[in-house]
């Protein structure tokens, strides 16, 4: 076993959040190119967690530290948010959430000058610049590699749920895509996107990985752009289908749901991994991207079709005891109420556009929502 496939043990059910964010100018709210300056200023402002460059100079990535509870995660995300907002204000920049920038032109993007990012451009060409989309990744700690594989397969059943609850990329390149999350269409273009093969243990996975390396298709785990993937060096499973929500509050809520769901799956082992999940996988995923919670969901275990919304409510019911133990009851109740009321970030963005009639204004409101101006000043 090489260092790449050595599964670092981590405390079960710890969680961490990564948020890819948009850097905007304050003139017309197009994407700016100031990632490097922003990071320089941020170095001088004390904050928890970590903030890192991303593939283009218009993006920045915020990482939480390892957390065990929703409330402490939220507090930390808010502290990083405030520091980042303060740094942005000093440079007259704006920061926003959302899975896509509504009107930027991908051809105008510039690649952040590091070797890895240059390599990505060399391999993928224009896809690298089109990859200026913004996602939330949630890490869930796993005690060992086998449970990481189990968790990956079981979470695959819930990928549509995560897509629908985080969907915030209805606009791309200045037009309404009619999707709730258009961001994942960009991800799907990459040859190594998709899902984990149907391996049953960490050893089987290691064998698969070594084969891919022998074929020279992949060199490291980073080359797999899967929706859910094990992250052996962190000892986690990483959920990568979420759009970056419009606020850190929603981001913490998503993480709380993921943590409660993982707690339920790992503690109760309710079902065995089923290859049929991957037969309906793309259909379900598309429905969630296109229609959100109004989409159709096919349960591979029963063959039943239902609105995705109903399957989420059932899932919330199942994880309830575990969420209570993790202190996530409040967050999950809010989630349930929002889905019942039909509110979502994608809907919020479309309403903003209807109200203001201009995508520049939509992005301005997006940045006000993320930076929480009033809260920071008072």
């Amino acid at each position: 076993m090489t260092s790449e496939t050595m599964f670092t043990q981590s405390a079960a059910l710890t969680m961490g959040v990564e948020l890819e964010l948009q850097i905007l100018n304050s003139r017309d709210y197009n994407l700016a190119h100031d990632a490097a300056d922003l990071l320089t200023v941020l170095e001088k402002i004390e904050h928890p967690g970590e903030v890192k460059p991303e593939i283009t100079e218009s993006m920045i990535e915020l990482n939480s530290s390892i957390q065990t509870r929703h409330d402490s995660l939220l507090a930390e995300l808010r502290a990083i948010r405030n520091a980042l907002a303060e740094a942005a204000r000093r440079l007259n920049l704006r920061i926003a959430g959302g899975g896509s920038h509504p009107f930027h032109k991908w051809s105008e993007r510039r690649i952040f000058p590091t070797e890895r990012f240059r390599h990505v451009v060399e391999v993928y060409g224009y896809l690298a610049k089109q990859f200026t989309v913004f996602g939330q990744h949630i890490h869930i700690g796993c005690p060992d590699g086998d449970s990481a594989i189990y968790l990956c397969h079981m979470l695959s059943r819930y990928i549509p749920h995560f897509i629908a609850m985080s969907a915030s990329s209805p606009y791309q390149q200045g037009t309404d895509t009619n999707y709730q999350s258009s961001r994942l269409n960009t991800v799907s273009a990459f040859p190594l996107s998709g899902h984990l093969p149907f391996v049953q243990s960490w050893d089987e996975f290691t064998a698969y990985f070594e084969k891919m390396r022998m074929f020279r298709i992949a060199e490291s785990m980073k080359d797999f752009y899967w929706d859910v993937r094990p992250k052996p060096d962190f000892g986690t499973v990483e959920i990568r289908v979420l759009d970056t929500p419009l606020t850190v509050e929603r981001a913490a809520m998503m993480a709380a749901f993921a943590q409660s769901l993982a707690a339920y799956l790992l503690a109760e082992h309710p079902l065995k991994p089923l290859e049929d999940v991957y037969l309906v996988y793309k259909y379900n995923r598309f429905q969630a991207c296109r229609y959100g919670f109004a989409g159709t969901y096919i349960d591979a275990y029963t063959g039943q079709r239902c609105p995705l919304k109903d399957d989420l409510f059932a899932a919330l019911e199942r994880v309830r005891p575990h969420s209570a133990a993790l202190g996530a009851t409040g967050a999950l109740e809010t989630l349930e109420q929002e889905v019942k009321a039909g509110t979502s970030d994608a809907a919020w963005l479309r309403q903003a556009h209807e109200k203001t009639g201009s995508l520049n204004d939509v992005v301005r409101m997006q940045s006000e929502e993320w930076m929480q101006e009033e809260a920071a000043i008072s």
Partner: protein
Amino acid sequence: MTEFEFLPRFPLPVNPLALFGVLLLAGVLCGEFTRRVLNLPRITGYVLSGLALGSSGLGLLDATMRDYARVFVDIGLGLVLFELGMRLDLAWLNRDRWLAMMAGAECVLSFACMFGALVWFDISPLHAAVAAAVGVSSSPAVVLLVARELKAEGQVTERSLNLVAINSVVAVLALTMLLSWIHQEYQSGPVTMVLHPLYLLLGSLLLGLLAAHLTLDLARWLQKRVEQHAALLLAMIVFLVGASSVLKLSILMVMLSFGMLVRNLDDEHVLMSVDTGRLGQIFYIVLFVAIGAVLNVANLAVSGALAVVFIAARFVGKSVGVLSFAHLSGIRPGSGGLLSLALLPMSGGAMAMTLGSAASYPGFDTRLAGMVLAASLLLDLAGPLAVQFALRRAGESHEEEKT
């Protein structure tokens, strides 16, 4: 009466539109040549074509012709200043006080250095102060248009534009005050000295304020349609250029305050973001051809040496001002030097004002007027290069990537 009355008579009269076309064509061709062949900013090409057509060259663009071209030049200037005003972000200056301090220091120190140098070279203090006040302003047109040409975006670009807007306003105010002082020397009361700058400042702000409110009300009524908003802004800009001339206000201050207020008063975000630069592109070309035409190479032979001293003193003052606050104002190390370089171009507008003032006061030091013109010539040619270098070096230019 002959049968050939329908034919045009020679010599052909000057037609402003035909002139506009010729200037535009000369500028476009020359600009493209400098860009492609010499890899210099197009603006340098525009200025060079003006120089070739003007009094230093073929002499085609003489004073009469320049009067015809005046209206296009003023519109070009109006558009540039409006865009610069839109970029002047008071809220930012309020948040980043170090940037505001930098702006103040840069103005004061460059004034002091130029003043000191000129007095050292036996220019009378009052006249030295006038020249120094001209030198305080960086050229809004050059900095903004080079930034546009490079599609530059980033901290050096944004900060240099804000500094340019501020030092232009400071220069106009200082210059007005000093010119009134000269008034006094040439028999005009002390009242003028106070009232004239006050009229310029308050009058320009008031006109800008009224125009900004009117624009926002109309924009609200027009609703969010970008073509309508573009037409609205263009109409307001052209109107204000004319109005400020009728009311004897400074175009620079009226347009800057209009641009600044229309942005800063727009709490409800009714005005859409309009790319006024694209509307103005053709006017900009004519603007720089005309600037080139005014320049006179002969000045260089007479006052070249003093001009070089003046430019050096100006650069030292501006650099020290910028560098003392660069590290406090949160930009990357090294950006401070590039920022001071980007302030190098000197304002053609201020230059024109000095010309006017020198003409109306017979006692004005002609050596000094020649020196300012020589400095303008040097900086109109070197300035665009300096800005291009600074913005490229800062990694903020956005030309086609070489991949």
